[in-house]
């Protein structure tokens, strides 16, 4: 009885093993790194594969530092990183800025505030200002919602806005852009920061120093909380890797990036 089942399973698996090496020879590349850019890279890869039959593009996450590491070691053909400043070990890599991601400060939609100055924002996130009244809002306690230490979004937010100021230890910590957004949308006193691509109608985006985070303002550089998204390759890209990067930088690719909530590279 059992013997028969084992033989059946063996026979079923045999062709899988034997023929897995065959099949149509198709070109394939792997992208790995930034979790912030991962969903957009997947979308771009999908569109690209629709247009070019017979190629396959794998997109993996892992975080920006892993993106750099895997580009250096060659584990991935293209590494993705979303850091304000790339670490020195990335200097040997070919770098392409394919998009820019804005970090926006979000609050609950019922909050009357629509603008903060840089100084006010710094004081809120450092815990010096604890009530919305102090920045011209209602008498309500401020709940700060942040990301965990090491997160790319948090690192960029620190580099761009807080600089040397330490985030208050009273801040609530959430482990993804999505959960920060959900928690801000459910707490009337909350303030948080997320990637511009993640904004939806449940939260209110506020201006910084009177400047709204629009495409125009990021292009001119007026809105400051912007981080570049890099694609990194070990050497001059060739073949599929090159044509995929070219596709992302083309107007088609940039259009997809813009329509999904990121900002175009130029």
């Amino acid at each position, binding site marked *: 009885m059992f013997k028969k089942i084992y033989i059946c399973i063996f026979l079923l698996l045999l062709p899988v093993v034997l023929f897995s090496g065959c099949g149509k020879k198709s070109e394939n590349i792997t992208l790995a790194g930034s*979790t912030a850019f991962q969903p957009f890279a997947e979308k771009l890869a999908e569109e690209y594969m629709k247009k070019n039959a017979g190629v396959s593009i794998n997109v993996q996450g892992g*975080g920006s*530092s892993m993106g750099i590491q895997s580009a250096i070691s060659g584990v991935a053909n293209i590494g993705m990183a979303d850091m304000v400043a790339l670490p020195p070990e990335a200097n040997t890599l070919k770098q392409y800025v394919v998009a820019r991601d804005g970090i926006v400060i979000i609050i609950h939609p019922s909050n009357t505030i629509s603008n903060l100055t840089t100084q006010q924002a710094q004081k809120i996130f450092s815990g010096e200002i604890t009530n919305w009244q102090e920045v011209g809002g209602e008498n309500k306690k401020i*709940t700060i919602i942040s990301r*965990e*230490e*090491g*997160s*790319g979004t948090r690192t960029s937010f620190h580099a761009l806005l807080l600089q040397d100021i*330490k985030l208050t*230890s*009273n*801040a*609530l*910590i*959430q*482990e993804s852009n999505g*959960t920060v957004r*959900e*928690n801000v949308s*459910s*707490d009337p*006193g*909350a303030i948080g920061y997320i990637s511009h691509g993640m904004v939806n109608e449940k939260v209110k985006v506020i201006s910084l120093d009177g400047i709204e985070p629009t495409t125009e303002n990021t292009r001119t550089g007026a809105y400051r909380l912007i981080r570049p998204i890099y694609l990194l390759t070990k050497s001059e890209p060739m073949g599929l890797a090159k044509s995929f990067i070219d596709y992302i930088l083309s107007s088609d690719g940039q259009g997809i990036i813009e329509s999904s909530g990121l900002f175009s590279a130029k």
Partner: protein
Amino acid sequence: MFVKDNMSTKDKLITCVIYTVAFSAISILLLITIFIFRKGAPLIFKIGIPNFIMNKTWAPLGSQYGIFSMIMGTIWITAGAMIIGIPLGVSCSIYLVEYAPLIIRKILKPIIELLAGIPSVVYGFIGVVMLAPFIRIHMGGPGLSVLAGSIILGIMILPTIVGISIDTLQAVPNSYREGALALGATKWQSIYKVVLPAARNGIIASIILGMGRAIGETMAVIMVTGNSANVPHSILDPVRTLTSNIALEMGYATGDHQQALFSTGIVLFIFIMIINTNHLLKIYFYYLLYLPLQFFVL
């Protein structure tokens, strides 16, 4: 013992295979232990045990690795879960065994056991969507708090406590109850003075297992406790536990930061060991001494 003499080759082979499988499970545990200690111990010794355990500041990017607030967080949350889970669980099992008609017990017990099958992320989601806003509006604070975590965990450990407690209470011989009642005790007196003391060991075991579950739970806790690395001062303060510290930051951690998370794992490991030691000792004696003795000597 004649079974042993008559053992066919096939039997011996199967025994051998089963032994190997059983011991490979244990050796995996051993490997995990070695791995955690190898990864985490160097950092603990580098910064010193007191500095690691008693320091309140957790700022890994600023090379501050103090997990005191997380240890306190785990203790607060677990204590809270126990305060909610033990009375609910034990009284539930007393009702089901002593008072409930058979038909109700037959319906309720599987339902409570079903609670164990609900994924923890679902508990966490309910906590975020319903419990946290309720606490924020009616009691103050940010809502994501020790209280929210304790309530969610208190419910999550119910099936563990109820399941084992019911078995223990059922195992108390009926003659105990009859004896108590015959001496003139009321129903409640017989339960309180006779049945519960008789079932004490099993109920304590169920509580210990529930506690282990509460300490180890991660996903639901991350979602409902707010994760601030601060020592909580009230049950409305957000808090971070040892498990959530590891799960939150593992994704991005490199170098010393990653090691610090493994060190957190060591502390968690020691926590669980202390709690389960009573339990473990019993198991060791039974399986490592008593059973082999029976097998080889008799």
